[in-house]
């Protein structure tokens, strides 16, 4: 089992519904977010290219945030989901400094918080909240180890990129381009 997400940058319109859905689903405190939208403009006028990316934790296979955690609060759960156990976290900030994607933040209660791929929904057989809500259906989620899962199929079929692969983190978000 290896959970992963594919994000179709061609279909995303940058509406931020995934952000709001996550904030609602996970009770993310006001002013914080576990996922976010980035708009990239590339090129020289008039040859401009626009790309929207819905970003979140990459649930890296080689996760520096987990390695640097002194207490074991950051760990890799079933299916490769990178999680934080709140009662073990001392809020030292090492994992925040270690994440090249800036995917973590300190919850006002002191522990570190981040995307969980909505594992509480996965248990019930549901998709993560962001995936479920996306109006253009540009987010694909599933098991990369299963060749018939939606995410495996779309990653096989389409051209994709991952973010800063050269950082060696082996990220598990596939951006379809």
């Amino acid at each position: 089992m290896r959970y992963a997400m594919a994000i179709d940058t061609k279909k995303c319109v940058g509406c931020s519904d995934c952000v709001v859905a996550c904030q609602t689903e996970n009770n993310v405190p006001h002013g914080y977010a576990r996922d976010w939208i980035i708009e990239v403009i590339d090129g020289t006028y008039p040859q401009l290219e626009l790309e929207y990316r819905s970003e979140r934790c990459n649930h890296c296979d080689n996760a520096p945030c987990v390695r640097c955690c002194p207490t074991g609060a950051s760990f890799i759960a079933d299916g490769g989901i990178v999680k934080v156990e709140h009662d073990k976290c001392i809020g030292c900030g090492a994992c925040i400094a270690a994440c090249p994607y800036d995917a973590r933040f300190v919850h006002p209660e002191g522990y570190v918080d981040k995307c969980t791929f909505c594992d509480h929904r996965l248990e019930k057989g549901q998709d993560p909240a962001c995936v479920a809500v996306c109006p253009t259906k540009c987010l694909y989620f599933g098991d990369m180890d299963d060749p018939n899962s939606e995410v495996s199929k779309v990653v096989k079929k389409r051209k994709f990129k991952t973010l800063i692969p050269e950082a060696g983190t082996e990220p598990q978000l596939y951006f379809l381009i």
Partner: protein
Amino acid sequence: MREELIVSGRSNPLIDPHLEIWEWQIPAYLFLGGLAAGILFFAGLFYLRGREDKYPTAVRVAPVFVPVLLAIGLLFLFLDLKHKFYFWRLYTSFSIESPTSWGAWTLLLVMPLSVIWAALYIESVFPKWDWKYTWAKDAIKFLSGYKREMAWGMVVLAIILGIYTGILLSAFNARPLWNTSILGPLFLTSGLSTGAAFIVLLSKNKTERHAMGMIDLMLISIEVALIIHMFMGFKASTRVQIEAADMFLGGQFTATFWVFVFSLGLIVPAFLEFMETKGKRIPFYIAPSLVIFGGILFRFIMVHAGQLSRWLY
């Protein structure tokens, strides 16, 4: 041209951690850790080499301050924690890949050792000190028999502690400015140098001051070489590391770093120490004070700038 805009809920300073997850507490803690390591190193080294009478400040006086320095450092570390009352979790696990974990356990060994050493020599700072209870006197007597072993422990642990203050940062591949293995030896050298400076400040003995000044001069030369080496390494590395170095080579930290850390904190004191060896009379406290000032500022700048340096994607 390539421009990235954040168009959603991430556009707030609370989630963007490169807007300083580590503020003043961590650099202050790193400085104090390095300084303590420097003092312990010289105390252990000179004791083992039988120079206790030649360098009384280094062996007997300065180490008495170490437990205090470490306690303040640990307090700063505690202040940095955002989930404070779970701090004991640091000691319910050991994570071999986590520098923070190494640091926490190293300090757990260094702290009692430095307290015992300080207790053995406390009379050299407080001549009227009296261990009121006989059991305390007995304990001191007993422990005095193991000074050699302790000195060895101090030298080894001081090196680990000094290197750790650099490795804590260099282990972060996500922050290109920190991600260089030179940071370990560099912070160790800087810690030893501030330790030597601290001893010069305390010493009332001219030959000791002179000798420690010479050692400091040597350490500063190594530090300068390591700093130049670090920037050369960055400039020859990937784009993100070139950009990290550029923050110091024309960018926003250029003036602060080269004027205050490099010139005032290294070159000027080295020059003053050199002039002293030539017999020029210079108030002895200027050079070591500058070294300590430079050591503090260096850590603040490195921690701050490192958090601004990042991968672009």
